[in-house]
């Protein structure tokens, strides 16, 4: 208790107000209108209302209720220079079992929509770099949703790691069973490291980023995507309000996430430079809270925080379903679930990279900026 309190004062990057904790749940297949490559067959999409609203950038204060101002406690991942291994928020073994379970589902393809979408966007960012990468690594790539969207001209050889052995088996690339928290590669090995939707389950994020930095060659690039920010705030708030009203208190059901504002610092501390961080808000529409939870489970994204409560009382579930619908429901009867996907790009420093100009080398004064910005009448067409 004392420790977490201290951390929050330090401004640890994943401290959440008490509101923001939840449980993992999950599952149902919504459609992405935008993308038609979803498996057309067995998806249970029939009666489901769906659609995505993809918006760049964040919502302004989306918070649902006023408990938000409460004192902070609960899981904090500390950023700071605390060294590795000090943070232990998530039960990695549980995460592995969840992933194995979801990989063993017969209809597992229908839960891939989010990973596919995010994977393609990560691949987009790889294409933005006009280079061929001889050797790339996908951290926590599972079934390799990124590689599906890449071509051989861009990435010549790919290594894939995942914590769950079952998700790995289908891929024709070189697969390595490895925990993202302990990368078993030599320093300066890869030209490109990618990661899609797996970093948000890592206990020691600063340490993991440092390891990624290590295995990269100089001038190598890391392109990653993870869930963060206000992800699943609808579910988090509904469950909290339901538990408060039914049971007189609430417990974490949705895991803590990294805030986008901290991501830049984290990357910088890990040694990356020329950073790019941006947020995509992906909103998926589901028929109801049950489908949200079942789908998350099918994705292997159930909560695995140590402090999660394994029980969700059935009264609470009923209450949460009513609150979710009333508070966030759309007019057509569907309910939205928001995923804030944080994208990050960072480069391992190399002397060939652009550097800040020398101090005093400017030829213009900032004082003259106002003159520059005013176009003269002759410039106008």
């Amino acid at each position: 208790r004392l420790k977490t309190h201290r951390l929050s004062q330090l401004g640890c990057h994943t401290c959440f107000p008490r509101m923001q904790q939840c449980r993992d749940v999950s599952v149902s297949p919504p459609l992405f209108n935008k993308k038609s490559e979803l498996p057309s067959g067995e998806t249970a999409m029939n009666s489901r209302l769906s659609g995505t609203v993809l918006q760049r950038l964040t919502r302004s204060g989306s918070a649902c209720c006023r408990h938000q101002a409460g004192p902070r406690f609960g899981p904090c991942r500390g950023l700071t220079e605390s060294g590795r291994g000090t943070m232990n928020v998530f039960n990695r073994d549980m995460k592995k079992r969840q992933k194995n379970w979801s990989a063993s589902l017969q209809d597992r393809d229908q839960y891939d929509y989010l990973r596919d979408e995010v994977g393609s966007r990560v691949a987009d960012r790889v294409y933005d770099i006009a280079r061929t990468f001889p050797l790339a690594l996908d951290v926590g790539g599972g079934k390799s949703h990124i590689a599906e969207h890449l071509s051989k001209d861009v990435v010549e050889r790919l290594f894939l790691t995942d914590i769950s052995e079952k998700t790995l088996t289908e891929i024709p690339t070189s697969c390595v069973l490895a925990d993202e928290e302990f990368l078993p590669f030599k320093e300066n090995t890869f030209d490109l490291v990618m990661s899609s939707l797996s970093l948000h389950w890592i206990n020691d994020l600063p340490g993991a980023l440092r390891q990624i930095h290590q295995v990269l060659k100089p001038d190598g690039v890391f392109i990653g995507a993870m869930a963060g920010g206000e992800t699943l705030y609808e579910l988090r708030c509904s469950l909290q309000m339901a538990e408060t009203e039914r049971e007189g208190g609430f417990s974490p059901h949705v895991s803590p996430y990294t805030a986008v504002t901290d991501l830049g610092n984290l990357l910088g501390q890990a040694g990356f430079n020329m950073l790019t961080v941006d947020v995509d808000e992906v909103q998926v529409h589901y028929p109801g809270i049950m489908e949200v939870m079942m789908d998350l489970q099918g994705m292997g994204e159930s909560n695995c925080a140590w402090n999660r409560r394994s029980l969700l009382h059935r009264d609470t579930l009923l209450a949460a379903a009513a609150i979710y619908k009333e508070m966030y429901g759309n007019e057509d009867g569907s309910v939205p679930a928001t995923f804030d996907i944080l994208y990050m790009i960072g480069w391992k420093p190399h002397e060939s990279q652009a550097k800040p100009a020398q101090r005093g080398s400017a030829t213009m004064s900032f004082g003259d900026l106002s003159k520059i910005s005013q176009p003269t009448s002759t410039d106008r067409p």
Partner: protein
Amino acid sequence: MSGPNVWSRSREKLRQFPEVFAQCAGEAAAYGKCVTATTKGRQELHKDLCVKEFEALKTCFTNAAKKRAK
């Protein structure tokens, strides 16, 4: 996977949840309104604040589930 067991039976029940829940839309809306009202007004949310609305919702839900089971 394995045959029917406690786990798959309870899972089966959960699968029926949306359908049964849909039959109590009115009660659910009443309860939802009661709870979400606390996010706007001065009223603090506390235990059993909306117990009346919840009981109505639960009765409706249980009856609907029973009917479905028959």
